[in-house]
């Protein structure tokens, strides 16, 4: 087996740019929630088609449909002009469609060779696995991708960027001609992104079609041939690269004149939260995820923390809230040192966190809307030994009103709510404890634009009316310039810049180290 055979040749009769796969009126409903409302677009041979859209716009749902993970509620997929229905992801894979998820689907305990052939082992003449042949092909694939990775290296010893290359090799080995990449650069370093883009260019030159999803708009623009923009489950624009620019994408993503609010004219009080010299070890324990960070937030003030993934925003917030342990620095709430206090004690003291991942850390799926809303403030409706149903109903009703949750009532199951309303439940739960400081980690993640505006509006109200000190983080620069009085940019665990709300998006992005790749 030579290196040239590792990547399958494409049919010669198909010209570059010819449409190989089409989505026609694809719609997907989850109960009453419409994730996709009829999307059309083409994937062309040997070209990159990028899907742009905010969180919750339906990009991931569409990708799951194209790769056979889920089935559309209506609409059809045409492959080489003929309608197809994928039974499952394996079926789609056998027709040459691979998806590389944001979270890689590899086994860290196995080596590169075994990962590439996982589930598709080459069986030798005597019924055993032909490891030698597998290794040969793996070497050829790595040579093709110009990555110096030994096939026998355990996957867990590779950097994330290299692991991504292994995933790509795996897709190529399966003779994929359509490769879907969901946020492939979100965890990569700048040099790794360069390598990935080179691989993408090589692949397209060989006739592989790529569907690309990214939040890094400039970055995606450097590699794409076509742009598709989704907004709230609808396709709002489709154009070849030559006809578009960054502004066109943002306009179509966010919609015209969309207003996420402006900083409330709240009366700023004394410093509510004071963080000094905070250090938090990173996951490996060798480096620092948060590196001597200072932050002061006054009562009634809203501070936005902008940064890329891995900038240390989540670690900073979780440490302040008491979930992670700091290895240096102090956190003060209204002058009181919080060292050694548990999460529960910090909540009682008036400091709360709305976590980033609401499914994993925010909601109890087995409980009702009301029970979720009242979970953090059970003490306020416990009379003696028992909870008071009436007092609890009051707490729940107040919370539903305050954060405007659209629900059939407190008794509805939490899973019946849309993402935006679920997020409001998590926020409402923490506001029901009557905090003085609220930290929100990516509060707009995975919710639609309308819900986003409502979330920011309720934060502005809480800051103005209650004198609440609000700190929220975001990775979408447009959301910095909404209700925040101050914008802090984090980069590699440190504050790299501070701005007031009159700053431009470009200045924020420059301070975050958001590299523009060429």
């Amino acid at each position, binding site marked *: 087996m030579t290196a040239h055979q590792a990547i399958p040749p494409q049919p010669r009769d198909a010209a570059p740019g010819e449409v190989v796969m089409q989505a026609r009126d694809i719609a997907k409903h989850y109960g009453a929630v419409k994730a996709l409302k009829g999307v059309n677009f083409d994937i062309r041979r040997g070209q990159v088609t990028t899907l742009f859209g905010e969180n919750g716009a339906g990009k991931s749902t569409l990708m799951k449909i194209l790769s056979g993970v889920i089935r559309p509620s209506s609409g059809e997929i045409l492959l080489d002009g003929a309608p197809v229905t994928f039974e499952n992801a394996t079926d789609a894979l056998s027709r040459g469609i691979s998806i590389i998820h944001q979270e890689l689907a590899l086994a860290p305990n196995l080596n590169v060779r075994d990962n590439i052939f996982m589930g598709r082992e080459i069986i030798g003449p005597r019924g055993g696995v032909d490891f030698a042949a597998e290794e040969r092909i793996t070497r050829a694939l790595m040579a093709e991708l110009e990555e110096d990775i030994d096939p026998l290296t355990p996957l867990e010893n590779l950097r994330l960027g290299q692991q991504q290359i292994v995933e790509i090799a795996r897709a190529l080995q399966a003779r994929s001609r359509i490769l879907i990449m969901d946020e492939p650069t979100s965890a990569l370093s700048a040099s790794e992104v360069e390598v990935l883009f080179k691989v993408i260019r090589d692949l397209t030159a060989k006739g592989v079609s790529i569907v690309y999803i990214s939040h890094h708009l400039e970055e995606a623009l450097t590699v794409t041939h076509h742009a598709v923009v989704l907004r709230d489950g609808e396709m709002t624009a489709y154009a070849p690269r030559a006809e578009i620019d960054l502004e066109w994408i943002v306009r179509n993503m966010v919609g015209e004149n969309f207003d996420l609010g402006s900083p409330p004219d709240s009366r700023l009080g004394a410093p509510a939260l004071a963080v000094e010299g905070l250090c938090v070890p990173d996951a490996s324990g060798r480096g620092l995820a948060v590196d001597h960070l200072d932050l002061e937030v006054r009562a009634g003030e809203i501070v936005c923390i902008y940064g890329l993934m891995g900038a240390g925003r989540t670690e900073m917030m979780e440490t302040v809230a008491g979930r992670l342990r700091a290895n240096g620095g102090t956190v003060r709430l209204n002058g009181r040192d919080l060292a050694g206090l548990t999460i529960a004690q910090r909540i009682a003291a008036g400091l709360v966190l709305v976590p980033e991942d609401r499914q994993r850390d925010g909601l109890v799926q087995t409980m009702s809307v009301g029970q979720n809303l009242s979970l953090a403030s059970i003490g306020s409706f416990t009379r003696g030994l*028992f909870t008071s149903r009436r007092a609890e109903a009051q707490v729940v009703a107040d919370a539903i009103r305050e954060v405007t949750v659209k629900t059939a009532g407190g008794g509805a199951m939490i899973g019946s709510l849309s993402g935006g309303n679920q997020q409001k439940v998590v926020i409402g739960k923490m506001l029901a404890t009557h905090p003085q400081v609220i930290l929100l980690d990516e509060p707009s993640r995975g919710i639609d634009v309308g819900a986003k505006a409502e979330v920011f509006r309720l934060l502005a109200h809480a800051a103005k009316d209650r004198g609440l000190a609000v700190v929220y983080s975001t990775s979408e620069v447009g959301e910095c310039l909404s209700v925040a009085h101050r914008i802090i940019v984090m980069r590699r665990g440190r504050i790299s810049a501070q701005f007031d709300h009159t700053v431009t998006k470009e200045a924020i992005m420059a301070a975050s180290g958001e590299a523009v790749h060429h």
Partner: protein
Amino acid sequence: MADITNSNAATRRPRMNIGHMLLEGRAFFALVAIIATFSVLSPVYFSLSNFLIMSSHVAIFGLLAIGMLLVILNGGIDLSVGSTLGLCGVVAGFLMQGVEVPAAGVILYPPVWAVVVLTLALGAAVGAVNGILIAVFRVPAFVATLGMLYVARGVALLMTNGLTYNNLSGSEALGNTGFDWLGFNRIGGVPIGVIVLAAVALAAGLMLARTAFGRWLYASGGNARAAELSGVPTRRVQIAVYMLSGICAAIAGLVLSSQLTSAGPTAGTTYELTAIAAVVIGGAALTGGRGNVRGTMLGAFVIGFLSDGLVIIGVSAYWQTVFTGAVIVLAVLLNSLQYGRSER
């Protein structure tokens, strides 16, 4: 925005149809079906006295099942309850025989109330060891309680040298009579064991539905990370849950040895599995967060009334085992139907 209740959100009132109702109340309907079937098959089955006798059998693993429910709601499992039951019975028997204090040269005969208190404390201590291993040292619940299953059983065998304490009645002269009261006496015709079960079930039900601790238990079983971030002391809850399970096992041990007026070291062997079965038949999810005392009680009665019914109509004990197994699998099948529907 003013009208928040009437909205287009994805919430609809659950439609009640026959299938849904049968699924929701499956343990109840199963119990009704069992009673109806055996009443037709045997003339002696349907009588108050038989129901009371069967109920006093149910009391033993019903008590274990309540403890097990708390653990399962919390997302864990307690395999040690059968052994804890045996150990607590043996320790109660040991105390009733009198404790020899060599230094003073006397034999102490603790009164029955003290025996009960000490036995319950032992159950709590066994549970505390489980809970600390699981909550603090992060030993998987399955492994920690499996180890305790062996250790507790081994200690019970060591204490008795494999023999059984037979004389638990105490004597008037020593002032420690009344141990058999738990197992034999009746109040208003109802065996004490059944009354104890009812009291424990009521207390557990109230605790789950109406106390902060109950809410913490459901929350940390449904999503421990979210509960922790909401200020729930998840570790303390976890330890407390295993202690409560140990106490339930101790109560069951007292009732059983009192019913038998003897305490054998092998009492309660495999009862942990019956208790898990009762909880599962009662509709609780083994993944935690879902289930209630009413369901578990129905589950315990389904198992008890089924196996006693099979005895009454003279079916071989081996068939009983087969039937019980089939019922358990059927129950889990229905559970996954109920909880799995919304997944995709």
